[in-house]
């Protein structure tokens, strides 16, 4: 027996997917989808479940996370019901559902999200104003003479703990809704599919490449690797400061990595901003405010990270310090809200795919034995 939530479709429609009631369930979207598989067929089933309000069926499957919204379903939908838009709306809805204490509701609401983003940014700015050093090194750029390593260290620790707490709690919630006891999967099988998903779905995002528009694939990959690159550059820079010395020649490595990753991230986020502003493809014609905030933050993180490294490189003290401050505010916003806003797909998607992949591998093994 499935539980029916009669308000489900209305709630989802608030997150986008306004035309989905036009659907007459012909199956064109599923058949045209390059990512839909025999085991996990979407989007039609998701539309059907949404219309009937069978929320559990949607939340307990990986389908939402398999969709990349390449837009073929939306382009060819005979009812112009925008099935791809529904998949995105369902993801927004799901992120809210998994959120501990319904914190994600704040970031998906209209007014509440504006207040929240402004408030968080002000907190970050206030922190910087209070803790920054008014007399930084103006001879040679040293960001850490502007904002001390100690402050960054402790602020980072606190931030990390908060994010980790929510991320882990929410992943556990998702795990519980996707986990099937009766599958009897061994640790080895989990381990095997873990690497498969990590490499194919996270690092190279193989299935995205099955969408027709390859530019979007490369841009998405650029977003991922640009972000990871900047993250690594930051860790390396601090690591060298901490473990070796602030003046170590090794700092060339994080500098170069930072500039390259910054450019890559700029390309990825810039591409998506451009598409959403100027090219009204099916996937880019409607943007929820959570989409805008995420892409803009990504873009700004890339821009300021890149500028910071550039200014350090050519030794322009004040521009470097300002870029650094802005970068810290943006990264604070981006990371603190990662478990609640659009960024959360980066943790939910791999988990959902991992679990479903493990089960489908297991099913194949069982079928082969039978």
């Amino acid at each position: 027996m499935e539980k029916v939530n009669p308000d489900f479709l209305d709630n989802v429609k608030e997150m986008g997917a306004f035309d989905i009631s036009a659907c007459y369930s012909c199956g064109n979207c599923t058949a045209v989808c390059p990512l839909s598989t025999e085991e996990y067929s979407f989007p039609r089933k998701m539309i059907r479940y949404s219309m009937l309000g069978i929320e559990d069926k949607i939340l307990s499957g990986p389908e939402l996370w398999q969709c990349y919204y390449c837009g073929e379903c939306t382009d060819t939908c005979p009812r112009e019901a925008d099935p791809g838009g529904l998949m995105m709306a369902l993801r927004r809805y799901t992120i809210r559902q998994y959120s501990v204490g319904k914190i994600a509701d704040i970031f998906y609401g209209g007014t509440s999200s504006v207040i929240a983003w402004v408030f968080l940014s002000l907190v970050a700015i206030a922190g910087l104003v209070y803790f920054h050093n008014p007399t930084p090194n103006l001879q040679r750029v040293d960001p850490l003479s502007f904002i001390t390593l100690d402050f960054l260290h402790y602020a980072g620790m606190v931030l990390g703990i908060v994010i980790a707490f929510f991320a882990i709690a929410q992943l556990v919630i998702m795990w519980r809704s996707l986990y099937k006891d009766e599958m009897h999967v061994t640790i080895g099988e989990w381990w095997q599919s873990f690497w498969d998903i990590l490499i194919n779905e996270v690092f190279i995002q193989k299935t995205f490449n099955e969408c027709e528009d390859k530019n979007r694939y490369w841009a998405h990959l650029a977003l991922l690797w640009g972000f990871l690159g900047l993250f690594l550059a930051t860790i390396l820079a601090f690591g060298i400061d901490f473990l070796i010395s602030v003046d170590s020649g090794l700092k060339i490595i994080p500098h170069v990595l930072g500039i390259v990753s910054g450019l890559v991230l700029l390309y990825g986020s810039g591409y998506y901003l451009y598409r959403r502003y100027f090219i009204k493809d099916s996937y880019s014609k409607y943007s929820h405010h959570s989409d805008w905030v995420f892409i803009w933050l990504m873009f700004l993180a890339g821009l300021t990270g890149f500028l910071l490294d550039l200014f350090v490189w050519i030794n322009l003290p004040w521009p470097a310090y300002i870029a650094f401050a802005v970068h810290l505010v943006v990264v604070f916003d981006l990371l603190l809200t990662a478990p609640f806003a659009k960024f959360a797909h980066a943790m939910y998607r791999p988990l959902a795919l991992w679990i479903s992949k493990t089960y489908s591998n297991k099913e194949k093994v069982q079928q082969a034995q039978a």
Partner: protein
Amino acid sequence: MEYDVLVIGGGIAGMESAINLGEAGYKVLLVEKEPSIGGKMILLSKVFPTLDCASCISTPKMAETAHHPNITTMTYSEVMEVKRNGSGFNAKILKKPKYVNESACTGCQDCERACPVNVKYDEFNFDLVGRKAVFIPFPQAIPKVAVIDIDNCILCGACERACPASAIDFTQVPEEIEVNVRSVIVATGFKLFPAERKPQYGFGKFKNVINAMQMDRLLAPTRPFNTVLRPSDGKEAENIAYVLCTGSRDRTVGNPLCSQICCMYSIKQAQLILGALPLADVTLYYMDIRAFGKGYEEFYKQTRDMGVQFIKGRVAKIEERENGNLILRYEDIENGGRVQETEHDLVVLSVGLLPTPEITSIFKEEKLELDDYYYVKQVDEDLSPARTSIEGVFVAGTAYGPKDIPDTILSAGAASSEATAYMETTRRQK
């Protein structure tokens, strides 16, 4: 010249209206743009759900129209302009030259045999076969008179020499005829949806993807190959697929309407194929079967019981294999919603109906309004179904919306009686 009624279009709706009015004693002028009357119905194999032979029903109507003392038929002619003239209308008609003297031609087809020009496309067989540059439109054509396709004619004069009746006349020129009428009936019918507009189905690109009108020709008594062959290699089809709702109920092609007939004609064809090719498998891919008329649902159930497969799921795309077979991709909705790819050796696209909004341009001064779907607008749909936005102009058949043959004939009855009422009222007022 004076007539009571001008009927535009010589298909089943136009003929039925003309006969009703002629029987009532009115002088009718029927104008048809093709070289023969009969419209699309005469080209069909059989009609559903009775499986009556379409030409056996429509040829008597055609003959009656052509020979009725009160009906004048003008084929290969187009109404260029209709203007109000008191309570009636003044109409200009362009009679295109057939380059054949209609009263002399006996329809012996000697000219066809003599003509050296092979034209690739026979419009009355929906391009399944070719024809000559001088040709009789189709075997049951009325008038059974040859017509010269002057665009393809090389003016060699072979037909002129072969004609035993000396009917070929290259000196003919377009003729404009002006008539006064008291009422007009628009029976301009429909256009078939051009399946090229659904590129994912490959019509026009893959040889073995045909439309349902072509299949009807392959099944008709006057069929071109005397069996159901697939176009790529002339093999008898063994595994035939129907893709329903091609160009209907589809906003991406701008036609959200149900065409009302595709389910039933596809089911009809499926039954006929079981007769023509007893070993063939027939599969219909549908969204939902709309068998709404008297005996239609029973006909559908019977077809299912005869072994025709019905699969729920709109076909999303078709790909061609090297041997000419086709792979259909669809979601098998009733079997767990799995995406399936199935191979067939012949695919029939059940194309829908499109309106003929061009007709509005001939009405000058007053506007013949169209509805939201570009069909002629019924201004009083419930109480006076044939009335249009112009007083005295009535509409019959598929010109105001998709319908099957029985409904078309009903609507022709409505249009002719409403036209009668209009003419009688205006006559009394004078």
